[in-house]
């Protein structure tokens, strides 16, 4: 749905940004006209109070924002985490000690708190260098901070896996055959890690979706007018009494998305884990 956001725009002739003063009651605090927050054939999810923007458009385009951030963060953390984990696990010695301590240190950090606090600080220091405050900058910042704290989980997992894999016979065989270290790491060990890697990635993706929504909810997420689910939940929360659909729709959608990714992750784990009971 997120991929086809633009196609939806073509069907409904709407976009997530245009304000629509026809759909709201200008005298009464911009309250949507019509029942259930203005749900109609044109506005499938109703319109936003105050501005009259189409909520369905904001929903599909918002899904895009959330997923772009979550996917990028997942790919980055998995790549970085895997590389560091491989190096630490295979080479051992001081490299492993340093990496392990850093990972322990990062894992014991109250990361969400730190992300909330550091996002505006990071942005302010960037704008001081003449970089304009913009929604894209925010997206980059969010991805960066999520990555900064996220790489430790795959890194620790991979390190453990490598530690046990490198003692196995086929690695010894490769070593005796004169294979280079890099060949062993990337050709022999890495393919054997694809199972756990896919599992962590598919399980961390919903985590990043909720983290991104949480950041937007706490006002340190993407900037307006960029549509975003977390921001929509934030805006709608205060309307829960007078306009329940406004909050329910993005709330339930977020729930379903996270749930489906979690189930997907479980499925992947079942498929790759020989010990689990496949029914």
């Amino acid at each position, binding site marked *: 749905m997120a991929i086809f956001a633009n196609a939806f725009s073509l069907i409904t002739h709407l976009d997530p940004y245009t*304000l629509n003063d026809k759909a709201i009651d200008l005298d009464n605090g911009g309250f949507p006209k019509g029942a259930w927050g203005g749900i109609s054939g044109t506005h499938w999810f109703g319109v936003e109070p105050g*501005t009259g923007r189409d909520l369905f458009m904001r929903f599909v385009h918002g899904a895009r924002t959330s997923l772009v951030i979550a996917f990028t963060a997942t790919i980055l953390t998995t790549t970085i985490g895997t590389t560091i984990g491989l190096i630490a696990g295979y080479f051992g010695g001081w490299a492993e000690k340093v990496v392990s301590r850093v990972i322990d240190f990062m894992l014991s950090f109250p990361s969400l708190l730190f992300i909330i606090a550091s996002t505006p600080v990071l942005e302010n220091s960037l704008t001081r260098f003449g970089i304009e405050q913009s929604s894209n900058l925010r997206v980059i910042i969010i991805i960066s901070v999520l990555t900064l704290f996220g790489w430790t989980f795959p890194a620790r997992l991979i390190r453990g896996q490598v530690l046990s894999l490198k003692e196995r016979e086929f690695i010894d065989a490769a070593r005796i055959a004169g294979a280079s270290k890099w060949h062993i790491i990337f050709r022999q060990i890495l393919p054997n890690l694809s199972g756990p890697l896919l599992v962590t990635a598919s399980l961390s993706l919903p985590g990043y979706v909720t983290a991104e929504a949480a950041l937007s909810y706490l006002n340190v997420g993407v900037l307006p007018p960029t549509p975003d689910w977390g921001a929509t939940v934030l805006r709608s929360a205060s309307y829960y009494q007078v306009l329940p659909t406004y909050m329910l729709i993005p709330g339930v959608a977020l729930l379903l998305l996270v749930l489906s990714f979690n189930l997907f992750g479980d499925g992947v784990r079942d498929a790759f884990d020989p010990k689990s009971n496949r029914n």
Partner: protein
Amino acid sequence: MRKTRLVAAAFASATAVTLIASLVTVPAHAASIVIDSRATGPAPAITGAVQGGTINIIGKSDFNHFDPTRVYDTAVGNFGRLFSRSLTGIQQNGDVQKLVGDLAADTGKPSNGAKTWTFKLRPGIKWEDGVDVKCADVLYGISRSFDTLADAPVLTGGPSFYLTDFIENKTDYKGPYATPNGSLSGLSCSGSGDNESITINLTRPVSDFNYTTTMLAFSAVRKDKDTKAAYDVLPLSDGPYVIESRVKKDKTVVVRNKYWVASTDPIRNAYPDRIEMLFNQDPEVTNQLFINDSGDAKTGLGRTGAGILTQNLSLVYDSAKDALKPAFEARGSYLKTPVTSWLAINVQKVTDVNLRKAIQCAINKETIRATVGGKTVGDYTNSIIPDSLGGYSKYTVCTDNPAGDVDAAKKFYAKSKLTRELTFVYSNGSTDSENEALALQASLTRAGIKVKIKSIDSTTYYDILEKQGPDAPDLMMYAWMYDWPNASTIFPPLFTSTMVGDKVVGENKSRVTDKTLDALMDKASSITSLKLQNAAWTRADKYVIQTLAAVVPLWQSKSLWITGSKVVAQDFTAMGGANWANIYVKK
């Protein structure tokens, strides 16, 4: 005074720190104030009112100042009057509002062409420790405002620029801390015992100076009890209540002052026995408490009434009738205030007057007002003088259609040499202000004017508004209310060119440095006939809006709020705040 612009529907939302005047009881229709120079205590009783009970104040932000010299906020001044008394004050009984003497027994006698004012002091007023309030205490209290002239001022925040501007100061007096042995040449006491008077010499004639003296900066402070900065937490009371305990930003309890005598006070009825204040409460929760009339909110009052958040408006407000719903009529209030809101255009950055006129035409007041509450926010206006003042005049700015005139805007914009993208800044505190920024952007885009909206952290928002330099905003929302009912407290504090410096611009958000306007304001201030003065302020208004196009007037605010069902606070002052003189708790 600066009016923190509120974006919630209610003029005094529970979320906002309202920085408005100390003049509590000046009504929207100032013309209806009569002067009663011989008023004596007790205050006229409110029909049906009973003594006793406890009132709960529930809100987000604490009162910022209790030191009378530092109070410059309607709600605070309103409340501060319970333990501080100024030279004059407003007595209110229903719709009848009178200017009366408070610490003074009369409303002042002007002489020397209104350059000298003499107030006879009211005998029998005592401090909370039983000592008489003497003329020396009044003199000391007034001279404390001059502390802001010191190198390291302590008593900041008050309306001291009026006092330092008006009161004669021949000896370069800088307040009692910086010049402990000096005295303020403009003040003198005469008489003794029950027959004391204070004489105030001014730098120029001020024909309505006895309105100026309603500000709490004209209160008495006893020299031996002046604890400097600490006085802001626990002031010595000469009013009907004393502060029993106070934890800033958390809880404060106020109880009766046993030395206060009703017969010496023509203003305060002082019905409740006790007032308990609880701050740092979530606005959404507070809103629900008041709407549902539950718990302590039953005998409760918001810090400035209970402002209703935009999203909850439909629960209490009937837009078809433009009134409160019947269930809330008895415990609510919906009034027009003298606060005007406008869009300030930075004329030093938006240099082309054609672009400024294009903005005036392109603005869609309807959609912008809708984002912050619709009709309840206020009535559209084309002037920054409220309609209750003599200087108000109805005229057209570009168009009378609140939705704007896009074609006219396009024509002006075509003539403009400046076509770069403009920056509008807003505080990131609420969804309402974000929506407002979006609506503003959309309305200017209709005429092709490019606008970038920029959210500013709410803690630094007001600093950014007055900053000079490349980061200075092009467009920003602002609001103002007079300090007493005269346009002389609107234009000079907002558009005097000397305020615009290299680093900051004070209240002159439009950065206007115009010699013609300065001369126009100087001339208006010096006119003693109120009628002629008002006409001069109308000219200043038209000059700022039509000639300079430095602002786009949006609306004159309304206030909508409710209280608990057991609190009777029908005398809401039209400027935003319950009139504490007359509040009572039903049995």
